[in-house]
Every structure is written in C-alpha cells, then in structure tokens.
C-alpha cells in the first residue's frame, strides 16, 4: 500500500527530475557523544541498513526497529574530533602510543575513570565534563575567551585509531552505494562550539574511497575558526582532486554567531571571507532534532514562527536562551542582501535542507517512529532527564525531524551533490511533503500536467536567480505542493519574501498563496486557522480538513524592479500528533514537559533571488 501511494506521489511530479529524500547528518557509535550516551553498538553499517529500510537492532533497547519509508540517500557524519577514539579505547585500550611513564600514567588514570563511568552506566558524565562553559570574557572572539578552548584529552597521538575508524566509515559508504537506488556519502562533522556557541558544520564529499582515504576528517580540535576549515577544504580538494561542501546547522544555538555581521574574530566581512563562505557553504540545514532555525520565535506578523524552538545551549550548565538575529535563516537571508549591497558579494545566499542529527545511528524523522536524539532518550520512560549537560530539558524538547528534499535527475552521488550546489533542494520537518517551484516572468502557459516540462523551460527552479527585465510587473511563481503520501493533508502554501527597500532597509512579508477549505481572511488580513482534528485520547488525526495537493501560479503584487529580493515557499500540514503526545498516551501521563501535543509540520524551499 505504502509503495503504491509513493508511486502515485512520484507520478504527481513525473518527468525528468526525480524527488529524493534523505538525511545528511547522522551519527553512529563512532561519535564520542553518541557512544557516551549509550549508542555503543550501532556503526555506519547499521545506519545505512536502517536508511535503506532493513530491520536493525536498536543499540539501547536491543529491539528490532525499522524505518517506515526508506530514505534515498544518507550521509554518516560522525564528529571528527577524536573520531571513534573513545569507542575504540573502550574495546581495546592498548591501541595507544607510548607517552612516557608519567604521560601514560595520567592517561591511564583518565581512561580507567572514563571506562569505570561507562561500566556503571554513567557514561554521559564523561560527555558532560567535556561540554564548554559559557563565555567569561567580554571579547567578540569566543575562541580566545578563557572558556573558549576545547576540552583537552591527553591521549597522545591517536592518528592510527582515527585512520582505522575513518577507513571503516568509508568502507560502509562504499558498500551501501547502489547508483540509481540508494546513495551513501562519506562525510563528518566539524564541531566548533567555543563557549557554547554552536558553529557546527557537516562536511560531505561525493567522491569514493579512492579519494576519501587520502585524508583524515578535519576537526575543530585543529581549528575552531570557520575560515580555517574553508582553507583546508580548498587545499585538500586541490591536492587530492576531490570535492566537498560544508553545511552549517543549529544556527539557532549559535548565540548570534552563525550568521553574524562580522567574522568570528570580530572583523567586518571582507570580499575574500564572503566569497569563501558562499563557495563552500551553498546550503544550510535549517531544521533538525535540536529545533528549527527558520524564523525568530517572536517574528511580528508570522503566526507560524516559534515552531519547535529549542532553548538549550550546548553547555556544561544552562543559561537563559536569548534568540538573536544571527541565529535564524530568515534574518540571515536579509542580512545577505545588505552585505551584498556593501561589498558586492552575498555570503548568505544559501539554499535550505533539513536533516536529523540523530545520534542513535537511526535516521528517524517520523513522529510515530522517533528514536530520540541519543540512545539514552530513545524510550518514553527515560526521556524525563537532562539531555546534553545540565540543560533543564528533556527528551520531549527534541523535535522528530527533519529531512532533505532533493530534485535530481537520478539517484547518484554526483547528481545529488550537483543539486546541493545549485540549491535545488529543500527542507522538511519530517514528512515527505513534495514541493516544486519555478519562477519566471511569464509562466501563464504552465498547467498541472506540463508543470515540470514547461517550468524548467520558462522559469528557474528553487535556488535559482532571476535577472532584471525591462518591465515593472512582478515575477510569477508556479508552485506545486503534494502531501506526504502516508501523512496528513496540507493547510496552506505561503511565499516568504525578503527585500531591500529604497531606504536601504531590509524588509520581509509573508503571502498566503494557496489554502484549503475555502477559508476567509479576518479583519487583520490573516487567513483563518485550518482547525485541528487530532484526537488527544488516541493521537490520531482525520484528513477531513486540508487539501491533498495545491497547484497555483502567483505573481508578486508589490514588486519593485530596483529592489533586490528573495522568495521561498513555506508549505504547512494540518496539525498532527507530536511524538510527545504519543509518549504521554503510552505513559498514561499528562505532564507540561510533554507539551505541545500537536505540531504543524512544514517544508521550506531554497529561495529564488531577484537581482536588479
């Protein structure tokens, strides 16, 4: 039944381009934090088997688990910092190099203590000890703050262990690559978190073992500055004739630093910095288990902001969450237009994807089949505890999402990588909502049937550029949105527009462009809510409201040909049960910590830019 539904879903878009769903951000037992939080047995092989739809053993509960709808691609992206070292030492501490009598003694005491904690089930204490403390200084550059250094681990040279682990990661990716059916990528995470400001990036390469085995992943233990990472990507790609992209994530936890107005060092953007950034970072992961980074939680005029807001920094202890402009992608896209005006390059001209950042080896983005952030918050009874440091959060603070939607000619590493680079990709918060959009100056011939064929001929897809034209009427957008074949109906489709007005100020506006159930606008100009069919006693919803799909052509009524702008689509589902409601029902409990109980899942496309 599921396969039939998916076939008809693909038919809705049928044409030369295929819609693929995958996860570019997944950790296995080789990540130190995954291992220390009770994923001590699921390696990359398990991750790929799960993603391809095979039953696997859960690393904590030891039950058989299986994804409902398999993924089309997966990147195993373990932390480069001490890649697999703790995992390997727990198996065999004799793999270390000689540090001399005192060096060995200190190291052995540390390792024995860590192994003891792991043995008695307190492995997370080892992880929590390594978390950074908030800045104690006043400077802009967090790396040179007294608390900015990463926790040192006196293990000596661990290159041999890292190389062994990296070889296993690469081997699994090669074994599971089935061109045309399933694409597995090599990758890793660069985990720079000076004083708890999240600057993390996932690095992906579409090349295979022949190239990947010539280098070792670059971690933030080498440098915590993004510019140093890009320099390494540049030199390594030239040296070994290989390709990379870097995908920032969890900007929501960056304390304003991810999309800042200056470099991390506090210098104004220069051309070189902006060019390097946009060359290596064409896309951003906007939604994942640790929250959504689309718009500031209190964005005026946006009733759908404050969605899955995650308020817990990656720190040893909790401090108040303060959302900042540099934490969210919508203000960043606007800032990019402003910087472009000032220096001629837009460092924030990025597309959008979602991914899970799951640390269980199971890329689970489904509310009904969500296996937690870590293995130690994977079952309902163990979710009511601090997750990541002394954070005052719980397993229900986590969001069951997201996924990366990719428009590609075929399911191969090369095609998916090219789609990332041309930004013909989008984010969903979990469900496989199908979204395609074309922008152009005259799209009136496009119909539901010839949508893709004419769309590519008359317009540009998501991630593209519109150039100026000698007329004043606004660009048109041909949009098709189809519900997840096994999911909920759709509430509405919106276009989010950002632009620089004639006074040089950046602005934003949200347009409802298609909606279900013949609803009206209220006196404030807001479309009436779609309603909520979720039965809080069963967790089930009814598709009696909403629409299965939308097709519309919308023209910008407020267009000014002198104003640089961007447009992206936001498509919303009707409310459905959040994973926390299902846990509440299972536990027969009603605790505020589990709320909200319902969620309006959504998709965000990469923007289309208009440049005068």
């Amino acid at each position, binding site marked *: 039944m599921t396969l039939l539904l998916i076939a008809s879903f693909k038919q809705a878009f049928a044409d030369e381009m295929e819609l693929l769903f995958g996860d570019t951000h997944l950790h296995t037992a080789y990540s130190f934090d995954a291992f220390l939080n009770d994923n001590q047995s699921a390696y990359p092989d398990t991750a790929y088997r799960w993603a391809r739809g095979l039953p696997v053993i859960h690393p904590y509960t030891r039950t058989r688990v299986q994804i409902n709808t398999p993924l089309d691609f997966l990147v195993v992206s373990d932390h480069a910092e001490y890649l697999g070292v703790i995992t390997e030492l727990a198996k065999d501490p004799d793999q270390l190099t000689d540090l001399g009598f005192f060096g060995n003694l200190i190291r052995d005491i540390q390792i024995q203590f860590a192994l003891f904690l792991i043995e008695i089930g307190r492995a997370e204490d080892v992880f929590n000890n390594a978390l950074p403390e908030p800045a104690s200084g006043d400077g802009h550059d967090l790396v040179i703050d007294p608390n900015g250094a990463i926790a040192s681990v006196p293990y000596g040279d661990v290159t041999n262990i890292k190389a062994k682990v990296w070889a296993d990661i690469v081997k699994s990716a090669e074994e599971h690559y089935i061109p045309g059916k399933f694409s597995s990528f090599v990758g890793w995470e660069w985990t720079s978190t000076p004083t708890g400001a999240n600057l993390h990036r996932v690095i992906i390469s579409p090349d295979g073992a022949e190239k990947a085995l010539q280098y070792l992943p670059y971690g933030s233990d080498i440098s915590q500055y993004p510019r140093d990472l890009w320099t390494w990507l540049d030199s390594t790609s030239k040296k070994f004739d290989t390709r990379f992209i870097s995908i920032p994530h969890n900007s929501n936890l960056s304390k304003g630093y991810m999309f800042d107005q200056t470099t991390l060092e506090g210098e104004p953007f220069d051309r070189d910095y902006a060019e390097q950034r946009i060359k290596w970072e064409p896309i951003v992961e906007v939604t994942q288990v640790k929250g959504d980074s689309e718009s500031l939680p209190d964005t005026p005029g946006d009733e759908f902001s404050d969605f899955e807001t995650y308020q817990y920094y990656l720190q040893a202890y909790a401090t108040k969450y303060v959302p900042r402009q540099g934490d969210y992608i919508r203000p960043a896209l606007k800032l990019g237009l402003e910087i472009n005006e000032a220096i001629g390059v837009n460092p924030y001209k990025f597309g959008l994807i979602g991914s899970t950042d799951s640390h269980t080896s199971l890329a689970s983005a489904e509310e009904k089949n969500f296996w937690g952030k870590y293995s130690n918050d994977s079952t309902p009874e163990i979710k009511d505890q601090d997750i990541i440091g002394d954070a005052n959060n719980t397993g229900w603070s986590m969001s069951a999402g997201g996924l990366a939607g990719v428009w590609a000619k075929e399911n191969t590493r090369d095609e998916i990588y090219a789609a990332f680079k041309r930004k013909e990709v989008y984010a969903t918060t979990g469900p496989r909502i199908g979204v395609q959009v074309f922008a152009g100056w005259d799209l009136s011939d496009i119909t539901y049937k010839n949508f893709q064929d004419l769309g590519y001929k008359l317009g*540009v897809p998501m991630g593209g550029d519109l150039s100026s034209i000698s007329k004043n009427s606004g660009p048109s957008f041909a949009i098709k949105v189809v519900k997840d074949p096994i999911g909920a109906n759709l509430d509405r489709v919106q276009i989010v527009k950002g632009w620089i007005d004639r006074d040089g100020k950046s602005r934003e506006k949200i347009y409802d462009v298609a909606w279900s159930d013949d609803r009206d606008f209220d006196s404030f100009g807001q479309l009436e809510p779609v309603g909520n069919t979720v039965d809080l006693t069963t967790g089930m919803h009814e598709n009696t409201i909403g629409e299965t799909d939308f097709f519309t052509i919308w023209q910008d009524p407020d267009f000014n040909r002198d104003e640089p702008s961007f447009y992206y689509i936001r498509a919303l589902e009707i409310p459905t049960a959040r994973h926390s409601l299902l846990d509440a029902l299972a536990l027969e409990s009603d605790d505020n910590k589990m709320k909200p109980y319902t969620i309006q899942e959504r998709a965000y496309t990469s923007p289309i830019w208009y440049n005068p």
Partner: protein
Amino acid sequence: MKAWILKVIREPIIQFVFIGSLLLCVDVLRNPDDYRVSNNEIIVTDAALTNFMQQRAKIFNSEEAIEVYKQLTVDQKDKLKNDFFHQEALYREALSNNFDKNDPIIKRRLVQKVDYLSQGFYDEVPVIQQEELDRYFQSYKENYRRPALITFTHVFLKSSGNNASYSKAELLLDELNKNKVPFEQSGLFGERFLYNRNYVNREMSEIESHFGDNFKNVIFSYDIPSSIEPSWLGPIESKFGWHLVLVTKVSKAYIPDFEMIESDIRSDLYRERQFSVKMEKLNQIKSKFNLVDKTSNYD
C-alpha cells in the same frame, strides 16, 4: 600628671584619633552586625543574588534582572541561594588554599581583563580629520576592491567527444541570434545542465567551481556587444560540454570612489586608531617590567 603626658594629650592628632575611636566604638555597639567579620559567614542579599543570577543568565539589563528576580518562586530563590552559597563557599576555600595562583585559566582571564580595559574607548580615540581619511584610503585602496561580477544565461549541449556536438552548437548559436532569443527564454533550448541556467551577479570563484577554469577565463574576458538586441556568444567549452551564452553584464573588479565608501573607511580607520591606543596602553604596562632572560636552551 607628668608633663610629657599632658603634652601628648594636647597634640591635635592624638585628640583626633581618640575621638575617632570613640565614635567607632559607639557605632560598633549600636550596629554590631555590620562589623561581624568572619571567614565562615557568607552573607546573601537581594542585590548579591540578582547579580549572581545576571552573571549566570547573561542578563545585562539590571532593571530587567531585578524584575526577573522578583518573580522567582520561593523554590527558585532557594535554588539560587544554594547555588550562590555553593559558589561562594568553594571560591573562598580555593582562595584560602591559594588555588588562584599558577592557574593558567585564571591567568588568561586576568590578562584578558587588562586587555579589554586597555582598549581604546570612544573618548580616547582622537577625532579623525578629513585629510587623514584620504591618506588612509590611498594607502589601503586594495582592501576596498570590489570583485568582478557577471550576469549571463546559457544554453548547454553535452559533449559527444567528437566535432558533431561543436557543429550542433554552432548551428544553434545562429538560430538563437537569428530569432533574437531573450534571456528569459534560454530554457527553451539545449539540454539540462548539472548546475544553474541563470547566473546573476556571480563572482569568479563560483563560476569556476561550476564550469571550470577555461570557461571562467573566457566568459569574464568578454566585451558585451552594445546592441540592444540579444547577442549570443560561443560556443565555449567547459568540462561538461559546449555552452552558448548571453552575457548581459560584466562588471570588472574596481575600487569604488572615496565618497561611495567613506563611512566604511572611517570605521576602518577608527578601529585602527582604537588598536593603536590599546597597544600604547599595553606597552606602558609592559614598560613597568623588565624581562630578565635566563634561557640557555638547557645548556
């Protein structure tokens, strides 16, 4: 009474000390709590707790912090008190054990504090004169260079490894020019390209990363024909095949006029001045010390 005693009593300084001591005694008797000095007592006040909370939560606005503090529940306040007590007790213990000495993190923090307080604050930086701005701009012109940018669309034909695809491209080029195909209709021709079709105001490194070095060099060297009608150019070879391009804008790299970027120059010079003020202060501090070099490379 002996004469020397009378003489001492008549001394104004002695009288002053005596009266002062008397007043102190009276105050100590009236307000004994204020004078109770004990290393074992940690006094907690609303102000101390609010300050503690501010440091923890990084709430910089004091009024806001007081409001937050007032709204805390009894449990929350108790927790805050416990945390405060915990920190203070451990801190005092650390001090009494001299743990603040020879600790690299404390050393770095203290150094950072001096460094921060030495920065050139607004009123310390000399006012910038117009001619200084001009001089600065002349010296650092290259820093303000704007990148070369290009706007084009293209029609792509896959390379078939022989001359056929080149000939096909040439024929199509004629057709595009004959029919005066505009920018926005380029999608009606050619084959699907791996990356984008339109490139608007893109700079060299991005074009190179999509098309390769040869294509980038050729396209950035084009002089756009001045005709109003579309003028398709090519075929240009890339690592993927042949491209017919319609270039609508090439802006060479350039240094903007002074007036255009005056405010940027001003803020850059200001930052430089601020840095000089700071270096001067740090040098003053350092001049109080002498470096006694006893290194010998362990010889």
